[in-house]
Structures are given as C-alpha cells and as structure tokens.
C-alpha cells in the first residue's frame, strides 16, 4: 500500500540554521572574507572555476565559503549559478601563443627559446610543514629581473618545422557544446576536450596515472607547460568588430608522445593537450595524458581495452556534479522503493519456505 507522507519542514529549517552556525565556526575566531579566500586560497578558487566551468574568482570564493571548503559542493553552486546567466555569445579562440607567462617550462628542451621560467611553483620545495605560516607575518617582496620582451613561442612549433610531430588538424568549425546538447557518442575531440577541462581533477588524474602505469601506455613527455594570462576577444554584433572582453588565467600543457608509426603514418611524435582555467597544473597535465589516450582511433592505434581509451567511460564519469548528484541521491528518502523490495524478499522467503515444507 502506498502512503503519501510529508513532514520534516521544521527539522530541515533547524538543520540549515545549525549548518549556518557550524559554517561560521567559533565566533571568537575572525570570519573569513570572500576576498581573503580569493587571494589566499587561490588554487582552490581556480579548481572551482575550472570544474564549475565559469571564470569568476569572486563567485568561486563565495561558493567555497558557502560550501565550508567542500570544493565539489562549491562547484555545484557555481554550475547552478551558471545556468541562470544569459549567454551573450562565444569568444574567438584564445591565442595561447600570446600568453603573458608567469611560468613556462619544458621537460624536453633545456635550451628552449624563451627559457625555463619556473614561476610561483611548489616544485623543488621540500614539502616540510612551514610553522612560520602559523604565525602572522609580512612576506618579503619577490625578486625582479628585466622582463623578456615579446610573446614566448610554443615549443612544439620547433618540432613541427622538421615534421617530427603530428600537426593539429586545422578547422574553424563551431565546436559542439555539452552545456547545450546532451553528450552523444562517438564524441569528437572538441567535445572530449570540453568534457575533460571541466572534469573532476581526481578522476582525470587517476586515469592519466593509469596510462603511465601501463594501461594504454603512450609514454608522455611534458613538451611544454605554461601558466599565464590571455586576453579574451569576442565579435560584438552591434559594433561590427571584435573587442577584448577580459582576460583569463590559464594553464596549458602540451605533451609529446611516442608513436612508432602505423600502416599509413611514418614514425613521428604525437600530442596530447590540456587547457584549464586558472593555475591548475596537475589537472592540465592529466587532461593532456587522457586526451592522448582517447585519440587511439584517429592515430590508428590498437584499442587495448584500457579505461583511459574508452571515451564513453571517461566522458560519462568525469563530471563530478553528475557523479555526486547520482551518488548522493541514494541517501534521500527511498521509503516506498525500499518497502517494495522488503515485500519482495519476504514473499520469496515465504515461497521458498512453502516449497520446502511441501517437499518434506
């Protein structure tokens, strides 16, 4: 029998009131401002922008505060907000060759033109807890040197000149948009890249690591990793020309991968590509490795049955909001579902019992 029930309004209200109090924590401790989160938790903010798929540091910082530091919950808030925004249009593709780089390194060419610029990195730190940070104190200004003039060229351009690396397919076709059309398979590379750049960092990292450990191994070198700011331009119909509408910080990773050639292609290097909002280096490298693994078909490689080669598996599971939405819904009331299961189990047991008694 189905019995409709309602209730719990007061319990829900009180739970949310307690949530607000717990979010604030001990009132004797000063409250965090959104600006403090934006400035001092910048990498969390960047992750929320990347996976929330909306570049707005203030909103991401607010979401982190509201979510009590639960970054997937914060991504959820940003995704929900994003759906309320009217879409003004699409930008022109950003020119990462024109990036004003804070960081730019290559693991393949020591003497790359433009040099190895480390930027504000955790690399080469000792990963020892710094107890000085537990006390407040001023930070000495970072040293400066004469800035280099002009844009820094992509390192893969140099390999390209000798035909040693596969050339990217040229196209000006409008890319599919998974925020507008449901995901369909087979997906093209543009759709895969959109899905990966907003995918969960942990999931994409795990898949990338699996390729390094031998599941569809494609031995990647980081040809180049760069972090910096690029201008975003858009055609504005009422003006009749393109203008800059802002500037975003991006992390770009180009991998150079072994490829011994196929029936149709000579041996040459191939590429994987990662491009992610913010300073999000681990994610960008992971994205490039998974992008490369998913390209097996177009490169004429064998499908080894590895998870990272299966675009349906990767794209259907890399979105942490879809994943957590489905996962967490099972904690919500399923009283009626469960009651029917309970009745089924009881009936099966009764039938089995009756059958045994009849046999005796």
């Amino acid at each position, binding site marked *: 029998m189905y019995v409709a029930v309602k209730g719990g309004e007061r319990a829900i209200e009180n739970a949310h009131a307690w949530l607000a109090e717990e979010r604030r924590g001990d009132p004797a401790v000063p409250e965090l401002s959104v600006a403090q989160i934006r400035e001092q938790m910048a990498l969390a903010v960047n992750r929320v922008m990347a996976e929330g798929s909306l570049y707005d540091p203030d909103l991401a910082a607010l979401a982190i505060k509201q979510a009590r530091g639960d970054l997937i919950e914060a991504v959820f808030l940003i995704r929900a907000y994003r759906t309320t925004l009217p879409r003004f249009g699409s930008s022109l593709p950003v020119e990462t060759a024109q990036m004003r780089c*804070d960081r730019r390194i290559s693991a393949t060419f020591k003497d790359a033109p433009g040099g190895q610029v480390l930027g504000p990195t955790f690399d080469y730190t000792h990963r020892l807890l710094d107890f000085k940070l537990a006390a407040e104190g001023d930070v000495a200004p970072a040293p400066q040197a004469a800035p280099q003039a002009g844009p820094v060229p992509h390192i893969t351009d140099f390999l390209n000149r000798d035909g040693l690396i596969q050339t990217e397919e040229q196209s000006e*076709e409008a890319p599919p948009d998974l925020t507008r059309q449901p995901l369909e398979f087979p997906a093209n590379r543009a759709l895969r890249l959109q899905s990966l750049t907003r995918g969960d960092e942990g999931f994409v990292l795990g898949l990338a690591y699996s390729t390094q450990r031998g599941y569809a191994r494609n031995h990647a070198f980081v040809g180049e990793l760069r972090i910096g700011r690029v201008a975003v331009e858009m055609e504005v119909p009422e003006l009749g020309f393109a203008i800059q509408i802002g500037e975003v910080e991006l992390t770009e990773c180009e991998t150079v991968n072994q490829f011994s050639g196929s029936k149709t292609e000579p041996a040459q290097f191939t590429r994987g590509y990662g491009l992610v909002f913010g300073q999000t280096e681990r994610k960008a490298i992971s994205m490039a490795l998974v992008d490369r693994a998913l390209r097996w078909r177009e490169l004429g490689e064998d499908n080894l049955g590895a998870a990272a080669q299966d675009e349906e598996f990767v794209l259907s599971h890399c979105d942490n909001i879809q994943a957590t939405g489905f996962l967490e819904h099972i904690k919500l009331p399923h009283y009626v579902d469960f009651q029917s299961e309970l009745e089924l189990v009881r009936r099966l047991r009764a039938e089995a019992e009756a059958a045994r008694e009849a046999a005796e």
Partner: protein
Amino acid sequence: MDRKDWMGLLARAPADILADLWDGLGLSPAYRWLRAPEVGGVMVQGRAGGTGAPFNLGEMTVTRCALTLADGAVGHAYVQGRDKRQAEQAALVDALMQGPEAGRVRGGLLEPLAAQMQARDSTRAAKAAATKVEFFTLVRGDD
C-alpha cells in the same frame, strides 16, 4: 588608442581603479539607457593543441550595457565580471570619447588606466623573469 583598444582596456580594468579615475574626471553627463546593465556569460574557446580546431573551454562572466548621451553619441560596454557600475562607467567613457570631451577623458582616465595596468603586467613579468633558470655545465672528469 582606437576604440577597440579603449574598450578592451575598460573591459579588463579593475573596477576600483576605474571608479577612482572616473570620479577624478568630475564629469557627470546626462544619458539614457539603450540597454541597461545586464550580467551574462560568454563561452570562452580554446584550440586543440593550441593551434588546431576550436573547443569550448568554459564560460566567463561579462556585464554589458549601452547608453546614449544628450548629443546622440552611443556608448557600448562589455566588461569582465558582474560589476554594473563598471559597465556604466565604461559605456560613458566610450560615448564621451566620440565627442568634445575626448581629450579630457583620454588624458585623465584612459592613459593613466593603461599605465597602471601596464605597470601591473610589467611587475609580474619581472617576477617571472627572476625565476628563469640559468643552466651551467659542471666540469667533467677526464676518466
């Protein structure tokens, strides 16, 4: 600095710096909205491999508006973020730059704004340059 340049500068400007410079101009022209400030999203595109086919990277917030001054000049603004006041000031600057106040707006707002933003970019570039690796080769033994 042409219109494309100043619109880009105004789009990227930090709202507080623009507000200070605008207040410093001491202009308060009468205007009428053609499109009141509206917050929306723009889908930012990248290219596969940095040079190949476009793909959708994610959205950014943008505020836009359009207005007309009493003399009929039309100002447009598309600015990054959700600051409606910044969009209004940017559209006013755009409109004023088409009329007799252009020199005053250029000298009193656009040029100092460009200089401040250039200084900010140069400081970052100088810090990056200080982290450039200088390799040196160790002397190798003979045997």
